[in-house]
């Protein structure tokens, strides 16, 4: 199946400037806390490249030495596929650093704004961060009026 990037948006592979929050079926504010940003470094244990959002899981060692498995939510697979993501962009065993925002319910779940891949590239995961939408502020795109 041929799927090319949008001519209009001029997307190129992993263009960080295209980092508008793109939640397919819910807004940002209803699930994640914009006042609780986090950075996690860990080992990928699983990748779910599925609708309505990609999910991947990281084993992260805390200061106490305990390992916690975090769930990271990215954008819709269709959207980030067009930005260059593939289902094997992250593989179990990859060590990555992610930036995002923690879930409001306090579980080990976070939105994922960017991922620093093992090769050093920092790529957008399609959620969080500043919006460059033409019609809607970042706050609006994040579900805040």
């Amino acid at each position: 199946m041929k799927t090319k990037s949008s001519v209009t948006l001029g997307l190129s592979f992993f263009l960080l400037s295209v980092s508008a929050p793109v939640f397919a079926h819910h807004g940002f504010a209803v699930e994640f806390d914009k006042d609780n940003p986090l950075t996690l470094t860990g080992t990928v244990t699983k990748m779910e490249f599925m609708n309505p959002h990609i999910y991947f899981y990281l084993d992260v060692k805390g200061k106490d030495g305990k390992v916690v498995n975090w769930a990271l939510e990215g954008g819709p697979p269709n959207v980030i596929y067009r930005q260059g993501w593939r289902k094997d962009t992250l593989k179990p065993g990859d060590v990555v650093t992610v930036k995002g925002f923690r879930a409001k319910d306090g579980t080990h779940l976070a939105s994922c704004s960017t991922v620093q891949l093992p090769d050093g590239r920092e790529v957008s995961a399609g959620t969080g961060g500043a919006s460059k939408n033409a019609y809607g502020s970042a706050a609006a795109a994040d579900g805040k009026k």
Partner: protein
Amino acid sequence: MKNFSRAPTVCAASLFFVLPLVIACGNRAASGNTQAATPDLNGVWSAPFTPDISKALGHQPPFTPYGAARFAKEDEFDDPLTKCLPIGPARGIQAGIMPFQIVQTPSVFTILFENQHTFRIIHTDGRSHPKDVDPTWFGDSIGKWEGDSLIVDTVGLDDRTWLDTAGHEHSDQLHLVERFQKVDNNNIKWTVTFEDPKFFTEPWSVTLPIARQNTEIMSYSCEENEKDRAHLRRTKK
């Protein structure tokens, strides 16, 4: 792509209704039956993601007191999309995030949304709206060509859809009038007018550019791996 689209995300019912339209369109194009004077808007398109339609308007819509009260208390927690319900006719264009495909024949103008794999059928065969329309997710749409534009009139809309992510709602009295004006082969000027005496004191309109996309609509299922609902929290007390 074959790995990416492996999951059974295409609704069988959608295929049942949509495939004949696509085939019919292809047959007509092949036989040269498409009316020469009718603009050709076939293709894959996308509008700027507009999660807050008041930003495109420049201010809040002209709310009635009832509409203002509803907007003030509305919580994104209640967004029908969080329940994987259909996106609705206008929001599907301006805030569907994903592209949509237009498939047109002389008698119908179809919009196939990648978002949730839903679709609109706009009748362009000269019919009128039925006398009594039971509200549905995409309403009853009729269209007529005026020069370079298709004018679409839609009534009978289910009041459970929202106009955007920011929580602008409507009643089942919502009346949509859309103009799809072909600017050139790669651009459409889309103007939508919202009229709803229960929510708005007067009709109001926004215009957005729709641009052709060099892509194909892809598979989508909101329920495929839905894990968020259990984590959602109200944003208003």
